[in-house]
């Protein structure tokens, strides 16, 4: 068990950071689920830590242009576009 229990307040805070609107009953459900997820991750504490491969450093590429996507390809999966731009809701 994690030391600090997940509270309803934690869930609402995480939801606001992710810009997700939650109904009250969803908050209850996620509070329980967050607990379960964190418990599951605690299992990882038992895995011994190992250092990453020391040889893998300075993976760099030269400053050379590569082909970009065309604007049409870039926008292909966008639900909405306008004037060649991705269109989304107001984000103040």
């Amino acid at each position, binding site marked *: 068990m994690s030391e600090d229990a997940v509270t309803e307040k934690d869930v609402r805070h995480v939801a606001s950071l992710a810009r997700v609107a939650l109904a009250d009953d969803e908050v209850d459900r996620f509070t329980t689920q967050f607990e379960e997820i964190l418990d599951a991750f605690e299992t990882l504490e038992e895995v011994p830590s190992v250092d990453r491969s020391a040889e893998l450093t*300075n993976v760099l*590429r*030269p400053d050379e242009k590569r*082909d970009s996507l065309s604007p049409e390809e870039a*926008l292909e999966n966008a639900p909405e576009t306008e004037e*060649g*731009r991705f*269109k989304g809701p*107001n984000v103040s």
Partner: protein
Amino acid sequence: MTAQTVQQGELVTVIGLEVHVQLETETKIFCGCSTGDADEPNEHVCPVCLGLPGALPVVNEAAVEAAVKIGKAIDAEIPQETRFHRKNYYYPDLPKNFQITQYDEPICQSGELEVRVEGERRPIEIERAHLEEDPGSLQHVGGGGGIDSAEYTLIDYNRAGTPLMEIVTAPDFRSPAEVRAFLAELEEVLEYLGVFDAERDGSLRVDANLSIVEAAEADENGELSTEALESANRTEVKNISSHKGAEKALAYEETRQKNAIQRGRVVEQETRHWDESRGITVSMRSKAEEKDYRYFEEADIPPLQVAHWREEIEIPELPRARRERFREEYALDEEAASKLTSTKQVADFYEDLASEFDPDLAATWVADELLGELNYRDMAITELEDRLDEVARLVELVATDEITAKNAKEIVLRTMLDEGAAPDAIVEAEGLGKTDEGEVQAAVEAAIADNPDAVADYAEGDDGAINFLVGQVMQATGGSADPGTVNQLLRAELDD
């Protein structure tokens, strides 16, 4: 300021900066998309900078080199190992929902840059400088045009992934004027290094923290304790995009906070937005705290070990060193040396001229005449890039006494800038070649013969009368005679 001189209730302004500068590379920091100007929105984008699933960021070597150059220029330490982190936030300017940046192991640590304000030099500590990716550009459309009232958002990711260096200073500034001087110096240094283009739109962006503390909190050296700094509520002012803007925004914020304190109110700790067009700062809805960004290591990018690059990468002589050398080598005063090193191009051009002609004459021509006339026309020396040899020829014409300095500046230089003509053609067309000695001598004699009253006044000791006679000669020769020579010739005649 010493503790003894502090008046009761005297207030000190404390400012620290986060300066974001775009690095001049051909391609983005983690992909091969161009950082150049695009014709269309979303033209310089690929799976990496669009954050498409499975895309793998690979660091641009040139961005790391630029960071090491900056580190060297600000006397920073390049740690043995440096790595990238993900800064998580949900906002559509970055399509991945995180920004790749650096957190606790930045590429540059503890450097400094000296600023000069009102003749006083002060080092500003640079706590860190790190590499990160620029977000995309948002347009808030509809409603009143403001962010809050907009109906929807349009997004262009051409800018997303442009390499940025974020340079973070200690809270070492005591006035908005110091901030402006620092930003100007920083821009100069970055331009000298060739890693930055100040002319580029949006290439410099500044966030500033400002607080007001009681001067009485300072120790005898004028230093403020960490507790004093931390106990004062500060505001973070965002959306500053130039050094002039920084000075204005911070002067506004300084006054606003001082007014609040003097009226007995508490300054709210908050983030404020600089509204350039209205000239005020406005409160923004409070943003996330640092822990909300849930920084964690960017596992897709192995760490960098580039400490040894600091010795391998060469950087050019920096503005401050060059200014000091100019003062010594060419015996220039501080103001001239400062003007002549304001950009690398100006300094290079001056040195070219100074190697051929009298360094003093070259200094006058570059610092005063050329930069003065360019400034008057709101032009940069870069616009004359291909015509600097013409300016050099003009200086040669003056140096070899072929035209007068007055004509060279008032007619030739101005015509060159306004009409694009070459100096020799202008001298020819305007008939500015210096009048030969015989002609000047004749004009001197004529002036004396024609103006007996002035001659009599001079004889009676009225030295001002000589100026009138010089004027007569200048008029007769169409301004092509040298006034100094005319003066001498007149005195020679009259004193005989």
